């Protein structure tokens, strides 16, 4: 396998909850994701999935352990700036994934403007091209988010994530709030785009069916720990950990 895009090594994140009370959201988490690969991260609410995504994106500094992105360890200072454009995210709530006051083309152009400078408007042509790739014609460019359906909004969010050609994308419950039929379309879209753009993906979901559709490998999280990390095919046919079996039974 090629050099991993992202590598977490024994990462711990401890939150202070006042009066000496602490929560260990990540407890010795290690994994790597290669280019073109999707790691599915499943587990119930509160198990630490979103925290793992934030650490992977460089949004949160781990309490201990190392995070390597394209071979380089996360710097002590300003961890974000250096990765601008190289990592992106598609987040959960389709209602708030887009600024309600910005037209679609502006939202999609923004990450490119952040990396290459210039006004949003100058990046509209690139925005239109990427919108087309996620199945939205140019007529959507000047619409506001409230004029779109939940599925269309997540398409726009995906277009925004793709416009800088990132090498790594986190999908945090990106389809969980959508109808099942819409989910299928979006999952298909992500799959096709990954085949074309070869980004590494961390696909976070509490929904094992959605993960099954995309993930090459699956990690199961419980109370901050990964209890099983396996090839997707092996995981779905013969889960080893009792907790994995328990989760799969509800499928």
């Amino acid at each position: 396998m090629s050099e991993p895009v992202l590598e977490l090594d024994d990462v711990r994140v401890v939150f202070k909850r006042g009066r000496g009370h602490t929560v260990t959201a990540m407890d010795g988490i290690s994994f790597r994701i290669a280019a073109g690969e999707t790691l599915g991260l499943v587990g119930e609410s509160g198990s630490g999935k979103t925290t793992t995504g934030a650490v992977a994106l460089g949004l949160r500094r781990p309490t201990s352990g190392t995070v390597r992105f394209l071979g380089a360890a996360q710097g002590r200072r300003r961890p974000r700036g250096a990765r601008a454009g190289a990592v992106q995210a598609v987040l959960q709530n389709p209602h708030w994934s887009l600024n309600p006051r910005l037209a679609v083309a502006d939202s999609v152009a923004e990450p490119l403007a952040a990396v290459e400078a210039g006004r949003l408007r100058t990046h509209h042509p690139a925005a239109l091209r990427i919108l087309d790739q996620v199945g939205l014609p140019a007529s959507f460019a000047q619409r506001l988010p409230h004029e779109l359906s939940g599925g269309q909004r997540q398409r726009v969010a995906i277009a925004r994530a793709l416009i800088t050609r990132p090498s790594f994308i986190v999908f945090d419950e990106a389809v969980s709030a959508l109808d099942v039929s819409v989910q299928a379309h979006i999952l298909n879209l992500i799959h096709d785009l990954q085949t074309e753009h070869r980004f590494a993906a961390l696909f976070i979901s509490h929904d094992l069916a959605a993960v099954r559709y995309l993930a090459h490998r699956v990690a199961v999280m419980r109370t901050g720990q990964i209890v099983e990390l396996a090839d997707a095919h092996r995981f779905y046919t013969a889960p080893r950990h009792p907790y994995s079996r328990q989760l799969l039974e509800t499928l």
Partner: protein
Amino acid sequence: MKATAVRVRRALAMRSGDGLLRGAVWVLLALVLATLVGQLTGAGGRPDAIVGPRLQPPGSGWLLGTDNLGRSLLPRLLQGIGTTLLLSTLAVACTAVISTALGVVAGYRGGRTAELILRIGDVLYSFPAIVLAVLVAAVLGPGRTTALAAIVLVTVPLMTRMVGVAARAVARREFVTAARISGVSAPTIMLRHILPNVAGTVAVQGTYALSVGILVEGGLSFLGYGVQLPDASLGLLIQEGGLYMVGAPWLIVAPGVVLVAAIMAINLVGDSLRDRFEPRETRSLV
């Protein structure tokens, strides 16, 4: 642009459906128009001209009566409304700028910055408005500047807090996180993402601040620390009228009615703006 136009039209359509609000807007428009016409055309006479005997009840030469010097009340009232509205509006514009800047920064930055901004606000807010206003007068001396500074100082803490809370909620939204991940700079995030999404709160709080501003001006001028004679303001006229309340009640009734009407109308406009921007809260009147 098109979308904005559509939204404005929709807002106006809703507005015309709301009779109470329409009444309130008319009251405010009438006050502004009356003062403008009065000041520009001199209709109703000069405010400082002596037109008849002292303390006359309303009559043909003096529609709202005369004061203790024989001046007609009407032009003085128009002048007073103008002074009060202008002073309060100017002060609230300052408040809006200061509070929006502080609130957006506090809401987006969170942490110690927010702590500091809100703590200072809490200290100011814990003083009764009029005590704060008199303190300002003690430092700056009586006058228009004092009234202006006092209104700003009294209205800034609450508005900053409200804008800060709204900005905090917006800062937690997915699109702000996504912008941060994309490497968008903090100033750009505040201007592009936070500010437009707290504009509604700014409008609502600005309206409420305006009615507080009018009250503070009234209170200060009433106590003699605000607008000074021979100028007029609603507070000053009420103070003067109070001296002759028994013999010439019209002198206090006219400016009093205008003050109450203006404040009620402004609060109604504020309530309906709030209904539009924060639909979950129920309205306080009706």
